[in-house]
């Protein structure tokens, strides 16, 4: 049996995203040249919510894309079976844009590394900023986030699960303790 502890509820997630949206506008002095790219799968939903919040603040719609990092993973040949590929959908050029990369949890940094490689194969952005809902530590690569919803100290045998209503029917972040 594993036991779960809720660390963010729907309201908490919404507050965190609102705050991040303001930080994005502030740091970039507006939304000009900005694009959002969500990492499959939950980063996509978070990016979409950020896009709506940015529109509320600034009145302009920021282009949004989806990136699938499966083909860039560094553990493809280690897993027994290949992860499913859902594909990348970015129907605009990222050349000379400021890319906000959105994911749910920042952990070892390997997913972000893969996403950066994938982005570089798609074009040459002016800059890439990283936005995550939860930073749980334990980095294995020199990567840090520019926008963090919540810093969450964890141990390695814990798991952070971000649930969003679009795919999980509920908005919450829970900390799961594995095993005994």
């Amino acid at each position, binding site marked *: 049996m594993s036991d779960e502890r809720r660390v963010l509820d729907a309201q908490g997630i919404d507050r965190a995203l609102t705050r991040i949206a303001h930080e994005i506008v502030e740091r970039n002095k507006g939304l000009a040249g900005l694009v959002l790219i969500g990492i499959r799968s939950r980063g996509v939903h978070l990016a979409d919510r950020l896009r709506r919040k940015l529109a509320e603040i600034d009145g302009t719609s920021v282009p949004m894309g989806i990136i699938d990092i499966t083909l860039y993973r560094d553990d493809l040949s280690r*897993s027994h079976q290949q992860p499913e590929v859902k594909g990348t959908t970015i129907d605009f050029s990222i050349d000379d844009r400021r890319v906000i990369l959105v994911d749910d949890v920042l952990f070892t940094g390997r997913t972000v590394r893969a996403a950066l490689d994938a982005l570089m194969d798609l074009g040459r952005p002016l800059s890439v900023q990283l936005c995550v809902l939860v930073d749980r530590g334990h980095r294995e690569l020199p990567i840090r986030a520019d926008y963090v919803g919540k810093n969450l100290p964890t141990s390695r045998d814990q798991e952070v699960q971000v649930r969003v209503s679009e795919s999980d029917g509920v908005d919450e972040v829970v900390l799961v303790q594995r095993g005994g």
Partner: protein
Amino acid sequence: MRFSQRHLLGLEELDREEILFLLDTAASFREISEREIKKVPALRGKTVVAAFFEPSTRTRISFEIAAKRLSADFVSLSGTVSSAAKGETLLDTARNLAAMQPDVLVLRHPSAGTPHLLAKHLQCAVVNAGDGCHEHPTQALLDLLTIRERKGRFEGLVVAIVGDILHSRVARSNLFALRTLGAEVRLAGPRTLLPSECAPWAFTTPHLEEAVQGADVVMLLRLQRERQVGNFFPSLEEYSRYYCLEEGHLKLAKPDVMVMHPGPLNRGIEISSAVADGPYSVILDQVANGVAVRMAVLYLLGTGGRRVEAVPTKTQMTAIQRSGRRATR
């Protein structure tokens, strides 16, 4: 969905979910070929060996592009034909290739069943790129992908396959898969090239018009002249009079009919230029989808490491534990 096949030997043995999964994966690979940098690192460090015992430039190139877009090393051995000429058995040739530790072996061979033979005796994944008159699964998958892009479904579609059914591996692969996916298949060609044993799978007719009537898809087969040594029809002229698809035939089909051909075209024999270059033809889409399908196949069979069912060594164990943990984040 997990794709649990180790090899791709034919479509007859795949179920509906497996075929659709292959198509879904292929669809997601199409975008990569439209990028400026047409390359992803998914198969970095993997080796794909193509052994072609029959000349086929375009299938081999399609596999080569697919492999390279996935960052795999691609080695092509058409020289294997010469070792066969020196008396080496196919299995010996294949074992020699296998000793070089490829991850995927793509095989084209004039004898039906050779991919099955190699799959039984080699450690690497085997992809059938055409075996005799048996199957050509990647060709059929790209046909299916093209159909789905246009029609959005398979159930209830009427697909006419026209030409030399007897000798066609493209026809067999398409027939088996289309039936699995719920389409209605009609086979048309001269009776000499239309075995009566097709009956359990499809309606057969020697009349092109009957097959095309109300069809959603007309799939033409290339008439392989080298196989026509058995007195199957009196002359090419007579063949084309009865089986060359002309614009007039398409009036019998559904208004949104699509015309397919695996290439290379014999213009004026099985397809008129007006049809080949006309609005119903999707022949070039097929070629583009060929790369995507082969990327999907190589990706699905080429990742996941060499599946040796031995006890992992200590370092492997650590790696497995590490990767397991990483996956949980």
